[in-house]
């Protein structure tokens, strides 16, 4: 097996015993990226030179017998809305094309303290608005499992980079499914932690009541390891909660006998692809075989979640993104007066989807529409939160498909924003309720990955990892890798 193909825990063992060096691991990932990147296009910025320097630092520290961090020497990739000091952070927008932050996001600082090596910044839908990464101002990313298809979005580059072996793990952000849906599409593990679990300081705000940062990994053990590194209180993010997170590794390997799993029927209804359902039900069978008790349940307000989301998220974005005006950072289009400067800067800087959402948000917040749309959506959000609270009095975990379909073709939905929005129906309610959600590879339909989504009550990431690990240990979907074809040649 190639070094770039290994997991965090496998590499950590080899690094600890000195069988390989951090430089070798980093070089292997860089070579892999060089090989597949022309086809996949997961990265918008490479930090290859810096990566080798950092890897050397890790090796030198280890050689001196110093204690190194839990992710020492592990190549990682970061979504390009996560601020990296001195490394451009574009949000894949023309407006921030040259923006190089003067500080690191808290998650970046924590991962660097843990010893991880940054390989580069990954492609995304502009300002995280989208479900396919086609809204990147630069170029689309291709799904490593089928290059004609999207990797999902908005964190498509981060998912594709891990699936293709260009990074061992990555971070994304998830406002309505932007970690879980691409994880499902690329057959990797993706976790959206509970709202408040991980600091968002230094991560470009989209919808502040919904945004969370989380990992993409090749398996569940790695997910626990990366979560360990990033979770916990941050003084710089007042929404990060104070309690100390547990060591998430301790939940791996715990028996799931008698654990109660609910299948909300609304997530298996019309609009969900039959073959996806079939794969999910087979996976449910595996968990039943391990002693879990599975029952059908209901989350009755599910059908309203997309409408609630597509009012609240744009409304919050329209406020958050007022700061992008060309004055303090980013591209500026000069004009004789300040209003025209703002208007031109924003009109030329933002792509169509961002402008569409800013306008929806502005509309929903404007006089006469506020009660009908914004306030109504906040009230229905409460009902969605209550649906989950009710369900978690009876079940430890809820299980659903992550996405109603397998990855769609590049270009298939880009001209129909409403259809694109509905591709998030399974993931959106989770952000509205603030609960943790994990997407796990659970099979294939016509050669394309299917992900199952596990949900638990707030701050019960431990339960998600426990169930996901039990499933993973009894299946081998997490060991299957895409054959990336470059220039007619297949690179397994």
């Amino acid at each position: 097996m190639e070094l770039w193909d290994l997991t965090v825990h496998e590499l950590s063992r080899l690094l600890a015993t000195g069988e390989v060096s951090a430089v070798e691991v980093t070089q292997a990932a860089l070579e892999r990226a060089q090989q597949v990147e022309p086809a996949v296009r997961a990265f918008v910025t490479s930090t290859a030179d810096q990566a080798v320097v950092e890897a050397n630092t890790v090796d030198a520290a280890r050689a001196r017998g110093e204690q190194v961090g839990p992710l020492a020497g592990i190549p990682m990739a970061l979504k390009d809305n996560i601020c990296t000091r001195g490394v451009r952070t574009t949000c894949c927008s023309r407006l921030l094309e040259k923006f190089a932050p003067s500080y690191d996001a808290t998650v970046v600082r924590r991962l660097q303290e843990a010893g991880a090596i940054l390989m580069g910044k990954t492609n995304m839908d502009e300002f995280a608005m989208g479900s396919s990464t086609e809204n990147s101002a630069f170029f689309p990313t291709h799904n490593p499992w089928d290059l004609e298809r999207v990797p999902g979005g908005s964190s498509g580059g981060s998912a594709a980079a891990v699936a293709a072996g260009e990074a061992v793990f990555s971070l994304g952000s998830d406002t309505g499914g932007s970690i879980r849906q691409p994880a499902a599409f690329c057959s990797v593990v993706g976790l959206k932690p509970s709202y408040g679990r991980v600091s968002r300081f230094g991560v470009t705000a989209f919808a502040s009541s919904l945004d969370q940062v989380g990992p993409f990994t090749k398996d569940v053990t790695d997910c626990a390891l990366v979560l360990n590194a990033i979770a916990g209180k941050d003084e710089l993010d007042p929404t990060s909660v104070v309690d100390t997170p547990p060591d998430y590794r301790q939940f791996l390997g715990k028996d799931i006998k008698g654990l109660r799993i609910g299948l909300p029927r609304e997530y298996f209804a019309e609009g969900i692809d039959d073959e996806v359902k079939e794969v999910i039900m087979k996976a449910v069978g595996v968990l039943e075989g391990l002693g879990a008790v599975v029952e059908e349940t209901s989350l009755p307000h599910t059908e309203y979640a997309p409408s609630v989301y597509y009012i609240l998220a744009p409304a919050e974005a329209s406020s958050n993104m007022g700061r992008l005006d060309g004055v303090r950072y980013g591209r500026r289009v000069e004009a004789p007066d300040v209003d025209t400067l703002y208007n031109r800067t924003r009109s030329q800087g933002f792509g169509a989807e961002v402008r569409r959402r800013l306008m929806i948000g502005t509309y929903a917040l404007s006089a006469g529409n506020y009660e009908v749309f914004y306030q109504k959506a906040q009230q229905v959000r409460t009902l969605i939160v209550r649906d989950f609270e009710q369900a978690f009095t009876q079940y430890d975990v809820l299980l659903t498909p992550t996405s109603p379909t397998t990855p769609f073709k590049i270009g298939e939905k880009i001209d129909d924003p409403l259809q694109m929005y509905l591709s998030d129906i399974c993931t959106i309610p989770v952000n509205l309720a603030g609960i943790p959600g994990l997407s796990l590879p659970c099979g294939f339909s016509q050669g394309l990955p299917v992900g199952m989504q596990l949900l638990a009550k707030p701050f019960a990431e431990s339960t998600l990892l426990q169930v996901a690990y039990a499933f993973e240990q009894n299946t081998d979907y997490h060991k299957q890798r895409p054959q990336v074809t470059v220039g007619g040649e297949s690179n397994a």
Partner: protein
Amino acid sequence: MVKITDVEVEKIARLSQLELTSEEKRMFTQQLSDILTFAQHLAQVNTDGVPPTISVLDLVNVWRDDEVKEWLSREEALAEAAVVEDGCFKVPRIMDEE
């Protein structure tokens, strides 16, 4: 049916600090109508007496001592601005000369 008119789209664009071409105006008029018509089904939900959710956390105000801490230098804070003068961000004149 929510029917957004050209005039409304122009108004929303102005409030959003955006300029639209006539082609974009036409496209957004249609798409915004479609999206908001879809969202109208929220009206069917009985929300009498249901409080709005603004945050899922029970956030309370957190006070801290007002202490000076090391943070970005003025140079760093200004480093990414397109136009800077005398250690400040520069914008076009916003008041008439009197």
